[in-house]
């Protein structure tokens, strides 16, 4: 029986506000592996999907940014736990999507799990590392804390479909931002599958929203969106064009978005990430209060 059983294929969907909708376009695009063999269809997300995702992210922002750092750490650790339980599945996804051998793919999944753990541990430490008390010359208590920037659009790296995605997404949400992620156009399936991990990980709906679709069609809308506070251009191109770094920076200027520019070529995501990506999406807030009786 089993050899004749027809496999049940997964319909990949977007992940917006904690739900799994189809694209409002009603369209999909064919995703292939690195050798152009068809893998599956991915939703062809549009500017309207991006708009809905931003609304969901904004709605989730007060709760997530207002949660205690400890609580966010617990949730991020839960993501790692859920991913760990699906190592095999994601090794297959990554292997297919990136065209790497299964062992290499598994190592990449493990690194992604470990990265979630790393950022889970950062949530209640960054304020001490990046903030502090300021010794002002007067009778005032004065301190600075890093605060979440708000809704952050993330153009996920093109190649590293899960570890790269994790490396750009986890630092954004660790500090209390909510995210709208546009998955790698070429390799979106691990990201879309990863949404299923998030859905069972105590991550409140809307904190992470995942879209797939053409970079050139969706990214400019995210870059120009007035209710997006920051954008990570990790997946953008340095070469001229509608989704180029330059054009997206220009679009982002309209509401003073914080822009994290990509490196010249996609970095080695296994390297120590440091705190840079977290700090890129925080705002230092300084509070003054007189001291007197």
């Amino acid at each position, binding site marked *: 029986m089993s050899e004749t059983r027809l496999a049940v294929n997964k319909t990949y969907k977007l992940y917006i506000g904690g739900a799994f909708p189809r694209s409002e376009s009603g369209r999909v695009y064919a995703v292939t592996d690195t050798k152009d063999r068809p893998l599956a269809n991915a939703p062809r997300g549009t500017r309207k999907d991006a708009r809905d995702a931003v609304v969901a992210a904004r709605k989730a922002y007060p709760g997530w940014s207002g949660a205690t750092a400890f609580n966010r750490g617990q949730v991020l650790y839960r993501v790692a736990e859920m991913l760990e339980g699906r190592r095999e599945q994601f090794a297959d996804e990554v292997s297919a999507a990136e065209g790497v051998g299964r062992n290499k793919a598994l190592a990449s999944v493990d690194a992604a799990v470990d990265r979630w753990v790393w950022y889970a541990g950062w949530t209640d430490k960054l304020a001490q*590392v*990046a903030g*502090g008390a*300021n*010794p*002002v*010359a*007067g009778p*005032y208590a*004065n301190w*600075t804390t890093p*605060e979440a*920037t*708000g809704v952050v659009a993330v153009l996920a790296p093109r190649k590293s479909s899960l570890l790269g995605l994790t490396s750009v997404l986890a630092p954004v949400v660790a500090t209390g931002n909510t995210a709208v992620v546009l998955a790698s156009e070429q390799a979106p399936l691990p990201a879309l599958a990863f949404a299923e991990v998030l859905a069972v990980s105590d991550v409140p709906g809307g904190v992470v929203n995942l879209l797939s679709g053409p970079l050139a069609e969706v990214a400019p809308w995210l870059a120009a969106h007035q209710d997006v*506070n920051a954008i990570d251009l990790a997946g953008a191109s340095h070469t001229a064009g509608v989704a*180029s*770094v*330059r*054009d997206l*920076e*220009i679009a*982002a*200027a*309209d*509401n*003073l978005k*914080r822009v994290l*520019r990509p490196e010249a070529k996609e970095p080695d995501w296994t390297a120590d990430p440091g705190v*840079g990506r977290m700090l890129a999406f925080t*705002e*230092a*807030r*300084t*509070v*003054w*209060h*007189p001291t007197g009786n």
Partner: protein
Amino acid sequence: MSNTISTPGKAFEYAPAPESRSAVDIASSYGLFIDGKFAEAADGATLKTVNPATEEVLAEVAVGGEADVDRAVKAARKAFRTWSALPGSERAKYLFRIARLIQEHGRELAVLETLDNGKPIRESRDVDIPLVAAHFFHYAGWADKLAHAGFGPDPKPLGVAGQVIPWNFPMLMLAWKIAPALAAGNTVVLKPAETTPLTALRFAEICVEAGLPAGVVNIVTGAGETGRSVVAHPDVDKVAFTGSTAVGKEILRTTAGTGKKLTLELGGKAANIVYDDAALDSAVEGIVNGIFFNQGQVCCAGSRLLVQESVADEVLHMLTRRLGTLRLGDPLDKNTDVGAINSAAQLDRITRLVASGDDEGAERWTAPCEIPAKGFWFPPTVFTGVTQAHRIAREEIFGPVLSVLTFRTPAEAVEKANNTPYGLSAGVWTEKGAKALWTAQRLRAGVVWTNTFNRFDPASPFGGFKESGFGREGGRHGLEAYLNV
């Protein structure tokens, strides 16, 4: 009293007490300060800077063109090699020297600032110039401690910094830009505002007096076009700008795709929230300081008063009573509280926005001030009956104009305070500590003053959320803007 005849109180009017102008010696004309020397602009262009309190021309100042900016950037690039290679401890000593020279020339600089800007001498003397010296002193100490600043073991300077500063705190903004840049090992090309170039030019002379190597600091005076040249110059690695949000956006578009590192400190429309349990006398002082300090020409000015309805009438009574004691007039007079508006253009802008408040039906109250016959002046003004929909509640007026709104609950106060594209600063007044902190936590602003307002310190980071810009100036955070981190 049983033995004395009851006498009515006597009028105590203060005689004029002008600070002497003899401390300053303004030349009739100034060149650009490039590579350690003053020189005319290549095309000989000049502009006149005037005393806004009298409209008297103070000096002619060169207008740097593209060629001049290029020469300045080249000088800065050349100086960068040696300056960045100096041991941090040596750079520190130059900055300490500069800090001390500023202190020594404090009175002169205060008078010069007041003449060129129109701000009261009390402010330039007690706030601006002491903070300038303190800022250099603070960052001097960082120069040989960069490895301990939390940016890795060996952070590097960026190179040549192009810096464009506004006219509201001319020398303080210069200090905020130059001190951290130099401490980190960068060299700078700084363009002061066209209406307030004089203290920057005097600072150039102080650099010479301090023996600062040529080319480390270059001062290129001029107007918007000069600033554009500085920002767009391909060999500028870092752009630091303080000014309007509109120009900030223009800079972002200009530099898009170039990889230039940016810090922008832009406009604001700060809410000053007064709860019903505030120390009201202090709150009134804070409101006054928040919006009438420097004639309200402050990006972090508390221009939106959000007062809890249950004390609104009383706070307004107290406020208008207090505003009646403000002394508007000669900025050099030591008793002046409200000086001149910096320029005719700024006065026009204020006047236009105030007219919009009238048109949109807000109620205007004007402090009873005699307006001097010459110069640019605007009396302290309070609008009541303002809602979030009024232009005067949304747009930065950059003048002595307060918009008063009311709220009923803490949640409503926070919501209204945050309901703006800006996010530079905010104020909170309550004697209840828990409520002050709860509110501060929720305000989307880079600086929150609780039970105080408009305090600044070199150790305290300053900068905005949202459209008020990004990057911080002051303290350890301020170093980041000038390091390759």
